[in-house]
């Protein structure tokens, strides 16, 4: 899973000449090279390994750390006390980071008869915990583990059923939306009737360090919680508990922006997804007293290796766009704007100055996200509060690299639970404040729809 190619773009953005000298804040989207989605951390790789390139220009030491993290990301954990890579489970969702984030890409919904691997269930019961987050389900915790090591029992299994409904565009072309319903079965103890489920599919790993490097005030500047400007789009930051800092901070990652940073996201995933305890999340995810307990454990992964994985994730480059000069792509980009998709999928952001980490510092990037929560409508709601995010609110998904999903992962299962099987379905699921965008698209001609898709494919 190691594609290792890269080109360094020694990107010299000397946009400063006397007569056209402008302050960086005044630069507009069109003043930048749109190929360079990840700024100087853009990689010209459009192959199956496009999501697996490291940052360029890392020092040998940092490159080594990236490599160590890569090794851990791919590491398959097995039952303790095996001599190599012990600590899996006893209950878990996946055996390695890479088993869900295949090729550092997007997960998929299970085919009939296939194990549910890259889709998981966050769970809770009504209320708020002491930090304003979801309340753990007694006996089950915050996440459902539907797999277990040999000899142990999974918490429960998940049955997924889809209902299908066909819609048509004015020109007669049809599209089908599938609506999932989830049923928990075979609980190791009775499953509480008031359990709430939030399905989440594994997201791609690219450019996360750049997103982490965007200044908090820049994210907040895009908030418009009460829609004061009256454009129909709000935008709200999530605030979540930072376990390391022991205080509330802005949430940036995950489908609900409920993870404060990459280190905690990684630590949480080790603990909850794989059953690997660590210095941040010290407790086993298992609650079944017959197979261990939920108490604190000696960390199963050393602190330095957790940091190495977080560093690996932080330093994954973003693939360059393709075909930006194609007239159809240009037209699609215009439609994207006119349809107001770019109100939330904000194309351009800038990372903060960080002299300690020049690769992340002061980069103009094109993630196509404002990193804020938006009302996506009842159709997509999981009916469950996650910190400040209501059930119908989801963080704007960055779109960079999305056009390579098919090649990297073979599937294009979009949205938080992978229900959309292509771009059109994903767009047409947009409700709530995004309904004006999907409504606009629903009235487009076939040619314009194709242009819009061409544009998305170029990202």
């Amino acid at each position, binding site marked *: 899973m190691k594609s290792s190619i890269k080109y360094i773009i020694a990107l010299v953005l000397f946009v400063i000449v006397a007569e056209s000298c402008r302050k960086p804040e005044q630069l507009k989207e069109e003043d930048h090279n749109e190929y360079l989605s990840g700024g100087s951390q853009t990689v010209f790789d459009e192959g*199956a390994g496009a999501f697996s390139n490291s940052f360029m220009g890392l020092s040998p030491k940092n490159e080594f750390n990236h490599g160590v993290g890569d090794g851990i990301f791919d590491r398959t954990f097995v039952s303790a006390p095996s001599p190599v890579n012990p600590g899996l489970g006893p209950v878990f969702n996946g055996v390695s980071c890479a088993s869900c984030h295949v090729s550092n890409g997007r997960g998929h919904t299970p085919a009939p008869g296939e194990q549910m691997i890259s889709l998981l269930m966050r769970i809770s019961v009504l209320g708020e915990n002491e930090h304003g987050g979801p309340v753990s389900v007694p006996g089950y915790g915050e996440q459902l583990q539907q797999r277990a090591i040999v000899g142990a029992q999974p918490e429960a299994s998940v049955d997924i059923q889809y209902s299908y409904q066909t819609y048509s565009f004015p020109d007669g072309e049809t599209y089908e939306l599938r609506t999932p319903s989830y049923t928990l079965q075979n609980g190791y103890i009775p499953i509480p009737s008031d359990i709430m489920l939030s399905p989440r599919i594994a997201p791609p790993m690219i450019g996360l360090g750049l997103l982490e490097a965007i200044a908090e005030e820049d994210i907040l500047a895009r908030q418009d919680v009460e829609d004061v400007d009256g454009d129909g789009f709000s935008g709200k930051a999530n605030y979540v508990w930072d376990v390391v800092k022991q205080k509330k901070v802005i949430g940036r990652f995950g489908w609900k922006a409920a993870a404060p940073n990459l280190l905690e996201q990684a630590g949480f995933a080790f603990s909850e997804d794989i059953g690997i305890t660590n210095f941040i999340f010290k407790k086993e995810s298992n609650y079944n007293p017959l197979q261990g307990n939920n108490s604190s454990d000696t960390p199963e992964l050393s602190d330095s290796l957790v940091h190495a994985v977080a560093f690996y994730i932080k330093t994954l480059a973003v693939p360059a766009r393709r075909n930006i000069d194609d007239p159809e792509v240009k037209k699609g980009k215009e439609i994207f704007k006119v349809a107001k998709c770019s109100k939330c999928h904000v194309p351009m952001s800038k990372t903060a100055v960080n002299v300690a980490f020049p690769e992340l510092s002061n980069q103009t990037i094109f993630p196509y996200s404002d990193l804020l929560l938006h009302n996506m409508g009842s159709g997509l709601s999981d009916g469950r509060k996650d910190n400040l995010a209501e059930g119908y609110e989801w963080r704007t998904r960055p779109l960079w690299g999305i056009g390579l999903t098919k090649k990297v992962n073979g599937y294009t299962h979009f949205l938080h639970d992978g229900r959309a099987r292509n771009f059109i379905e994903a767009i047409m699921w947009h409700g709530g404040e995004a309904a004006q965008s999907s409504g606009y698209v629903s009235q487009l001609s076939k040619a314009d729809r194709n242009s819009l898709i061409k544009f998305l494919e170029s990202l």
Partner: protein
Amino acid sequence: MKTLKYTIALLALCSIATSCKKTPAEEIVTPVSTDLNAEILSSISSNVAEATYYDLSVKADQLYAAVQKFDTVTNDVNLAVCKQLWRDTRAVWEQSEGFLFGPVATNNIDPRIDTWPVDYVALDSLMNSSVVFSETYVNTLDDALRGFHPIEYLLFGTGGNKTATQFTAREKAYLKALSVNLKNLISQLWVSWDPAISGNYGANITNAGKPTSVYSTKRAVYEEIVNSMIGICEEVANGKIEEPFAAQNPLLEESPFSYNSITDFTNNMRSVQNVYLGKYLVDGKGLEELVRVNNLSLDASIKTKMNAAIAALNNVTVPFGQAIISQPIQITNAQNAINDLKTTLENDLLPFIKTSVN
């Protein structure tokens, strides 16, 4: 561990453009003819990828048949046949790892047949349990409990000298279910490339540049291929060899029971060679033909370095798990030779592709 390579000094936005024309001199290259281009891609798809996967499926079938026979007539002769067929199947699989893109990755075949390490603790529990080893059951097992390495463990045992009399009935039942599971997954892999079946992955390669292909240009396919060659060099030199070597820990060896690791690595290098030469069982057109149109010295350099990598691995004369302790110089030389090849593929072949193919 992704190392970086070329600096494309992209001064595109340099607004002092008039005084800034120091872009690298464009090499004058003869465009490769459309026909040759198509022939090379078609050959790499059919003569290398399809041929390898077909052979892999044949070998996996033979392995399963041999395991069935061993189950019926459990003696050392039949066990030896199984062990040899495991090596034969493994050899083909390792020769496919130079092109680990497409269904092998996206259909999740690779982790299901070649996950390392083996979950010994769980395996022991299974042996002591009463579960019935069917293929359906094996399909529900975690990746570390199926595929090449659990089969290797059962066939060879620790120490590599397991005899027929040491097999329990449950071990044989598990071995049989594992072998049929391996055979079926490999069969799926072959079917995904089988030219007789519509939607086969090879069509993406031969139709590159057309809307039906996931590759928007022929160049994108070439880049995919070269990147995969680079990827396996990286993995062998700096993963499969480096990790056990740096830790001086034989437990981290990939194929420890059969003592097959050096052979695995060598076959990985052969995979790179096969793609370059367009050759698996018979010769065809490969990247070689493309390079030779414009750059004979690059062609010579790549061939020399591929041979050097294989030769350096052959200089390791004891099993890998021992060699990391007793033959550090040979191990280092092998790593260096593979990294040298990788550097040429990265710094010379890839840029060559970018300028030679559209």
